[in-house]
């Protein structure tokens, strides 16, 4: 697991294999350093994953794209992450304004372009 989110009473854990996680080049948001994966690449990966899940994501009017990192206050989670890899990822949410659908329509895309598996708890 690389990130845990609470989206409208639903706890969603995003999981990815260690091998995939370690593929992402290390990156920190500093001036002059663009992220290894662009916003458009992240969106394309999330759209592809949504299509596989048979979700209609053609309407982008509620799209919210968020660049963030594993919550450093979740010690159990952070401590288990491999040292190699990038803790920054994109959260692509196709239903940003719809609290009921938000969890289902959110995808975590790593800096290597891999889409994490969602586990609803």
């Amino acid at each position: 697991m690389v990130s845990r989110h609470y989206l409208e009473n639903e706890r969603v854990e995003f999981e990815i294999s260690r091998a995939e996680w370690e593929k992402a080049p290390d990156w920190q948001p500093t001036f002059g350093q663009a992220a290894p994966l662009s916003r458009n690449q992240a969106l394309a990966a999330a759209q592809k994953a949504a299509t596989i899940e048979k979700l209609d994501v053609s309407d982008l009017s509620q799209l919210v794209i968020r660049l963030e990192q594993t919550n450093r206050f979740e010690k159990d989670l952070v401590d288990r992450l491999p040292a190699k890899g990038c803790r920054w990822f994109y959260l692509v949410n196709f239903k940003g304004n719809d609290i009921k659908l938000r969890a289902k329509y959110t995808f975590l895309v790593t800096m290597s372009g891999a889409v994490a598996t969602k586990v609803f708890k």
Partner: protein
Amino acid sequence: MKFSTWTYSLVAAVVLGGSFVTAEPTPQAPSAEPTVVITGARSWRMADGTVHRLRFTGFSKDGVYPLFQLPKGREAKSPSAFAAEDRAVLDALKSGSLKLSTAPGLCMMPDFPNGPIDPDMLHFQWLGETRTWENTNGKRVEARLICLTDEDVSLLIGGNVARVPLKNLGSSDLAYLERLKRGLEPCFPDRIAVVGYGWERGPSHSVYLSGEQYVRLVKRGGDFEKAFAAVIRYVSSQLDSELWELVSFSESLAPAAPESNSILSSPAKIEGRPYMYVGEFFLKKKGELKSRSQWPLNISPRSWPGTPTLRIYATATGDILEPVPSN
């Protein structure tokens, strides 16, 4: 767009109080006669000798009764209630030789109030672009059109509205107004709230774009990378890198712009919404101290239970937007 002398002679007829329908075309008139466009907001002379400041908005479905916009709604009047010269104006509107302006968002309200304007009222008001106006005496002023009638123009100068008779305006201003009435010059909402944010147990703030900026950014589309670079560059230029840590950077579409006030203006809305960006930063103690004086509205209040947090707003063009306190 160029207007013929014929058009100007008709405009002059309106400005000088002459009848629209009796204006004679000059010898230079083009073969296809341009339609004269009016706002319909003016002094209407009645058969009983009284004068009413009203805004004509069209005819009843049967085409008989002229309709006028009043605060409570539209009201039909009998054509026979008007003095002969203004009955002729109504006939010209009916025949199509005079055309009513439908310029999107253009306020055409008789007697728009003069003097200081309530900033809240401006939220619902669409305005012309900022330009230099020059009267017949050569006096210049930077202002935005806020309302237009067939007799005068109300200009927003700073926070004040001043009404200027059309006869006191120079030819370039009159040409601008002609283009405006024909929808060839844009009107925009004065400002549009694109962010509204409240700190838990703390103050709230808003971020605004001018109408022009909003439209420009809709056309521009998103640019996550440019906005991201601008936000990081901005914070790096103000705070040493060890004093802050980026928590998240997000992109979403701004709320829709308000439609024009249909009682005062022609209907208008802006299609599309611009992308807005916000960077959230955690601050170290030293960074917090500096940030409180530099960005008093962007930073979490002292009562905030978590790590001091800074929010920086940006557009797709990389412009940093300053918040203002919300009511």
